[in-house]
């Protein structure tokens, strides 16, 4: 087979990400759905002026390279705190613990990073739309709130709705449980979150997976992300965080 999606290192998998790229970064917080080793590789690569699209801006204060429950853990807060991020688009930009501000909110207050706050469902649907070739859609969420500012409003079936545009990435960094060598993906528990949506919506999709298996080992009936969406796969065992 000529298609080779399997990469031997995380650094190699992110090596062509340029400055200024729009990165869809999977996960939701917690440990399971976060592409931790891909995120660290992007940090090492040092690409700057990135636009990061992700649900939150790092889960809980200063644990960019800290640990949760004694286990090493990394997320994209390290990209923010190291100054690699020009703009953040997501639903939870501030820390959920008000008394422990995260890197993004401090930089935002200093005017050093741009911010676009998006309701979580609108964020998911904007990414889904991009992956599905839809240019924009109307949603009721946000009418008469700050989210609706400067947006087109239309009454549909008697209900006011906001026009929201599709949101596409140059790269998506996602996390899954298993991949076969065609890039077909299955997930585990709450691992799908934004990962399975983002897999459809970027020019280059890079998946960090627990295990890469031979063709035939994944049941075609339970594939969640069809392999055509996935360009590169790397096993978590090649990274520093297991």
């Amino acid at each position, binding site marked *: 087979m000529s298609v080779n999606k399997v990469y031997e290192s995380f650094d190699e998998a992110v090596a062509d990400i340029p400055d200024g790229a729009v990165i869809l970064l999977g996960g939701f917080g917690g*440990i399971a759905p976060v592409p931790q080793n891909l995120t660290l590789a992007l940090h090492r690569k040092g690409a700057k002026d990135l636009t990061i699209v992700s649900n939150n801006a790092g889960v809980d204060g200063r644990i960019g390279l800290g640990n949760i429950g004694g286990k090493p853990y990394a997320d994209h807060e390290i990209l923010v705190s190291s100054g690699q991020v020009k703009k953040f688009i997501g639903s939870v930009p501030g820390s959920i613990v*008000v008394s422990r501000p995260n890197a993004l909110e401090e930089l935002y207050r200093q005017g050093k990073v741009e911010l676009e706050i998006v309701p979580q469902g609108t964020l998911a649907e904007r990414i889904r739309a991009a992956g599905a070739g839809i240019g924009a859609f109307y949603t009721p969420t946000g009418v008469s*709130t700050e989210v609706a500012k400067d947006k087109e409003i239309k009454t549909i079936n008697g209900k006011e709705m906001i026009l929201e545009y599709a949101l596409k990435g140059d790269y998506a960094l996602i996390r899954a449980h298993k991949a076969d060598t065609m890039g077909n993906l299955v997930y585990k*528990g709450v691992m799908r979150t934004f990962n*399975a949506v983002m897999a459809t919506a970027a020019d280059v999709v890079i998946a960090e997976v627990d295990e890469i298996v031979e063709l035939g080992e994944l049941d075609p009936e339970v594939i969640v992300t069809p392999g055509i969406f996935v360009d590169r796969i790397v096993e978590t065992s090649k990274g520093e965080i297991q």
Partner: protein
Amino acid sequence: MKPKLDRETIALIVAREFFDGAVVNLGGGIPTLASNFIPEGRTVIFHSENGMLGFGPVEYDENKQSVYLMNASAQLVQPRLGMCFFDHAMSFAMIRGGHVDITVLGALQVSEKGDLANWMIPERGIGVIGGAMDLAFCCKKLIIAMEHTTPKGGIKIYRKCTYPITAPECVDLIVTDLAVIEVTKDGLLLKEIAPGWTVEEVQAVTEPKLIVAEDLKEITL
């Protein structure tokens, strides 16, 4: 200082609203506690924004916890037969599509008309919307579970919210440590009151004029 209801009691009152077969989404804080008080004999299907439906209560035993079973409030929960997983687009299709029956959220402020403000403290300069806005706009029934006042005793139930709103006219029921209040077309209807508290005392920490239900009850467990 007279005793107010504790957080567990607020959660217990909220859980009375969970009908048999209800699909329920619980926000963080007091709302999550309601999962411990499902009325006997009823099946409640919990929905979590991060793609999980039909899970059990919070798992406190560290030996049994799994990071693959985390809810949207970052708590690890117990598996349950019949549960399922899905992605974020599907999860919010359930929410916006009206497939979630009851949502319980906390609030910074609630208005007389049922406007909710819970995503932004203006002084902080940055907010947290998460899934609350989609839930508040699209859920069939929205219950607010909160302390009646701020920690410093300030008012949280206003004629008009002073903080940026999450959604207008979305709240159906407010359950606090002092009262159970229904949002009606005519205004806020005081239906139940904490033991030892008078209508006047609750009114004193509530900006809009409360309508007192003819059958006003003392809250009982």
